């Protein structure tokens, strides 16, 4: 099935000369319309996860490669194709205050897309749509509509942003750290609504975060990024319980689980070999405790774990020469194929 949205060998670099950073490195990833799952794009700062979102939303132009929606390059779309793209690919952002223009009432966040995408035939119908969506996310329309952003709490504002996604019923939703700036007690509610968007409306959702606990809680599959490349990908339960890639192991080991019986275990040993010179190999080499010669020569491709396949569960791949010998997912293949049974 042709992907709904696709990054085809996309590379994004910033700056030039000595200050050149490769934010995303030759990434091929596609979301398929009949695969409505929540996929986490996980990584720390500098991993490329935000860049990936900005590329998918058409806010950054790729340096190399193409970004496609319904098989059309989004940077070469006609006016009507662009409208369709904008209508069907939506987002929930991190900062519950910054997405609102402080000048206008919060109703705007909902009413403007309804108007622009002609989702209602009359003002009354539009109002009805808005009220339904707000009730669905656990808000009371009479307490939220007509207010200005600063009059509501962060949790309320973020829920309105989720209600907006409900109203628009897009074909793809990208959620960028939707709960990191929200109080702990409200996170579960918002994550639940995101889950419901996915389960009830069958919308595939890309969940971008650095917080693996919420990723574990809400998503099905996970991609772990490090400095612009995918290090590991697979079922989220599997990847977190049994990480294959040394970087993922380091990440998972550092998760502060809210459970005093699940304390940080043995610290993962830092690499004793000093790898300081520039090399064309694995990006994690300089921090990896298992680094060897081959790691410095070329970047490892994604090796598909054979034991996972044997158990006939979903694919689990990691970009590490420790797993050399297994089947390889090439750079031109869509990562999402990994998650198909």
């Amino acid at each position, binding site marked *: 099935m042709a992907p709904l949205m696709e990054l085809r060998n996309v590379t994004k670099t910033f700056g030039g000369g000595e200050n050149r950073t490769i934010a995303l490195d030759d990434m091929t990833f596609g979301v398929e319309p009949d695969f409505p799952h929540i996929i986490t794009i996980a990584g720390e700062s500098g991993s490329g996860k935000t860049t990936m979102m900005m590329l998918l939303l058409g*806010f950054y132009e790729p340096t190399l490669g193409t970004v496609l929606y319904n098989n059309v390059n989004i940077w070469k779309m006609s006016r009507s194709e662009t409208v369709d793209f904008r209508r069907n690919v939506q*987002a929930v952002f*991190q900062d519950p205050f910054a*997405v609102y223009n402080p000048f206008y009432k919060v109703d705007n966040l909902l009413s403007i897309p309804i108007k622009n995408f002609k989702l209602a035939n009359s003002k009354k119908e539009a109002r009805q749509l808005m009220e339904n969506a707000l009730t669905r996310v656990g808000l009371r329309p009479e307490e939220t509509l007509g207010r200005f952003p600063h009059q509501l709490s962060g949790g309320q504002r973020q829920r309105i942003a989720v209600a907006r996604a409900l109203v628009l019923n897009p074909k793809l939703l990208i959620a960028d750290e939707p709960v990191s700036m*929200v109080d702990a007690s409200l996170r579960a509610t918002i994550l639940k609504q995101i889950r419901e968007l996915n389960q009830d409306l069958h919308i595939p959702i890309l969940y971008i975060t650095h917080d693996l606990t919420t990723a574990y809680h809400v998503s099905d599959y996970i991609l772990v990024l490090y400095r612009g490349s995918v290090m590991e990908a697979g079922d989220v339960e599997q990847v977190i319980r049994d990480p294959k890639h040394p970087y993922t192991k380091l990440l998972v080991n550092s998760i502060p689980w809210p459970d005093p019986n699940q304390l940080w275990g043995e610290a993962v040993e830092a690499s004793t070999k000093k790898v300081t010179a520039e090399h064309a190999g694995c990006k994690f080499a300089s921090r990896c405790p298992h680094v060897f010669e081959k790691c410095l020569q070329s970047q490892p491709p994604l090796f598909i774990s054979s034991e996972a396949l044997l158990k006939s569960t979903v694919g689990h791949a990691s970009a590490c020469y420790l797993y050399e010998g297994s089947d390889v997912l090439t750079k031109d293949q869509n990562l999402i194929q990994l998650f198909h049974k």
Partner: protein
Amino acid sequence: MKGFWDYTKRNPSFGIGLFILLGLILFSTVGRLFINQNDAYTQTVDFNQPPNSKHPFGTDNQGRDLLAMMVLGTGMTLEIGAIAGGVGLGAGIVLGFVAGYYGGLFDTILTSIIDVYMTIPSFLILILVATTFRSVTLGVTEMGLIVALVSWAGSARAIRAQVLTMRERPFVMMAKLSGMGSLEIVMKELVPNLLPFLVMSLSNSVYGGISSSLGLEAIGIGNRRNPTMGMTLFYVNYYSAFLLGLWWWILEPVVVIVLTLTSLVLISIGLDEIANPRRRRKV
């Protein structure tokens, strides 16, 4: 309206500045009812008269009634400032928004022009331009437009900078995702947010405009018949009012100038508070 009054109470700088400015405007408009406009131009034999019952503001050395001159002249100076400020800011807004939001080649060209333009002393430009006109054709409007020639650049640059920071904000991204077109975003999302900044820029522009016009007029460039503040000072200097001890002739334009400029500065300071929001947002 009540909100506005409350705001002026909380922001005394803005309130006082506005108050003074309104007072000056009233003086120059309502004041006309109390004077005979011709008195500002007609030369009489009552020259060099200190303030008295017939001439409450005194007369100058040509026998012109200073009250009439002040009333008319204040209005003229304010008008020059308004035109200079308004046109200068208007051009600055259009150029600044287009360069800031759309970027690209236009932005690069505009920034280069502004950078070069602003290194040339504005006063030189003004003198060069103004002296190509015959002084009698330099009415208030013309003076305003000439002065606007130098004020647009600073505004454009400042506005461009503001637009650049706003462009990356999540609410602009949200607007794009909601199907809003670029022009719509500029008009509906960016301009309202920049309103305080724009009003402050207007205040600064008007200030600059008045200052520049004073500079030109004080050295005699401009319509010598117009009793603007600058022209009055020109004559004060030309006819050695200091040596003759004609204090009222010196004091009056100076007071008006000080009041005008101070009120503009106060307004600007007052608006700076909301133009630079450092509100901490609690989530």
